[in-house]
């Protein structure tokens, strides 16, 4: 089926951009407000491979011409690039440090976390948001998370996240309020760990 713009490879975006953007945003907001809880994206979306529906939905809901986006090698296919350029209009950047958002379809091979923008002391909000697409949101090494949004503690263990990643993230905790905010996606599910969350294992 030919997509928008006459390009047969180009997949469509949200069916109802206003309502779908809002509902996806609210799931991301709920995930960010209660770190480690799993939310479901309830919009039908024919995402370009290798993006899962939740990954693609987060992109459509949050990215635009104001947000430079970095893609990892697996996510950086022609179809994904075309789709992002058409639906979001976001600039794609090769330098992780220049990105407001990063999308990784293979988080195991993620470049070092300190290569992404963590914001400045005066403007920590300039720290990037990383969208990490994983095999499942609960099949990996369990990490005990505490902090704002968590009464007591929670267990969170997404697949495809290495112990080394958790070590790097733990080092970033000392930089707070600078840091990176993480959104994990898998299928139609998503969960988040903002920089304020502490992880122990």
């Amino acid at each position: 089926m030919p997509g928008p713009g006459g390009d047969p490879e180009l997949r469509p975006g949200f069916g109802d951009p206003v309502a779908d953007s809002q509902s996806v945003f609210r799931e991301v907001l709920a995930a960010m407000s209660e770190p480690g809880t799993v939310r479901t994206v309830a919009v039908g979306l024919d995402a370009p491979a290798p993006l899962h529906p939740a990954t693609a939905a987060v992109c459509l809901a949050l990215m635009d011409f104001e947000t430079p986006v970095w893609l990892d090698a697996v996510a950086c296919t022609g179809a994904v690039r075309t789709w992002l350029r058409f639906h979001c209009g976001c600039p794609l950047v090769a330098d992780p440090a220049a990105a407001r958002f990063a999308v990784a379809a293979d988080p195991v091979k993620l470049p070092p976390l300190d290569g992404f923008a963590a914001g400045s002391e005066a403007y920590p909000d300039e720290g990037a948001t990383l969208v990490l697409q994983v095999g499942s949101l609960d099949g990996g090494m369990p990490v005990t998370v505490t902090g704002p949004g968590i009464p007591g503690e929670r267990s969170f263990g997404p697949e495809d996240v290495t112990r080394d990643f958790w070590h790097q993230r733990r080092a970033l905790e000392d930089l707070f309020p600078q840091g990176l905010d993480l959104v994990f996606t898998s299928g139609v599910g998503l969960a988040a760990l903002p920089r304020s969350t502490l992880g122990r294992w």
Partner: protein
Amino acid sequence: MTRVSTVAPDGGYTFAYLDEQTKRMVRRAILKAVAIPGYQVPFASREMPLPFGWGTGGIQVTASIIGREDTLKVIDQGADDTVNAVSIRAFFARTAGVPTTTRTEDATIIQTRHRIPETPLRASQILVYQVPIPEPLRWLEPREAETRRMHALQEYGVMHVRLYEDIARYGHIATSYDYPVRVNGRYLMRPSPIPKFDNPKMDRSPALQLFGAGREKRIYAVPPHTEVRSLDFDDHPFEVQKWDQACALCGSTASFLDEIVTDNQGGRMFVCSDTDHCDARVLAGHVGSAAGDRDPGGA
């Protein structure tokens, strides 16, 4: 009593007035605000069809989060029927067509100016505060470049000094509203001009609290279950206002009371500022000294 209304949205506007690009920009700012509790995220606040200083920050936040599944409550001074609350509720009924309510329990989003409802909030509710001046240090240091540096270095001693000067002069802290808090042990935050009576409700609330300052172009947040501590001293712990009187309508001794001047001789009566809370108590059979003077179901 459940006054839920649904009004068909005005076809001339996009849903909730803001264009999609503006909503995305506000949404990104909200997410960063949640990720850095108490930190003021700059955002490119837009001119709204209501004046700056009249709730444009709260309106932009509400417009960016609200969806067709939501039920909205708007209060000003705790009341659903004050003119600006009426005006803002009408704005969203007109531009978003969402159901509105006066009942705290039935609302998914509550936009407020100057109060937190007496009814405890629950998980998945969102409280949106209208904020006039977001910077807690502003009246001690007028320059943004300087206050930003102070936040970066957690240079908050100047606020403790100010509160301590009150103690030295009056014997206790003489700040009764907009009382400064520390969020999650890090950022000093202005709770907006709520009475300090409401400060304890912010602490570890299961609801998400979002703060919008339109004219000052800042958004900040307190996630659910987050420590919000009112500044105090070991020998002068934080305390809230108390009244000798009970609400004249519902008899409540636990709610924030408004003082009403009733005649030219200076007669006074005290009634709940939270009208929904008061109405619910009256319906449940509670009575105050002046019960019968007011029709709780009245428009």
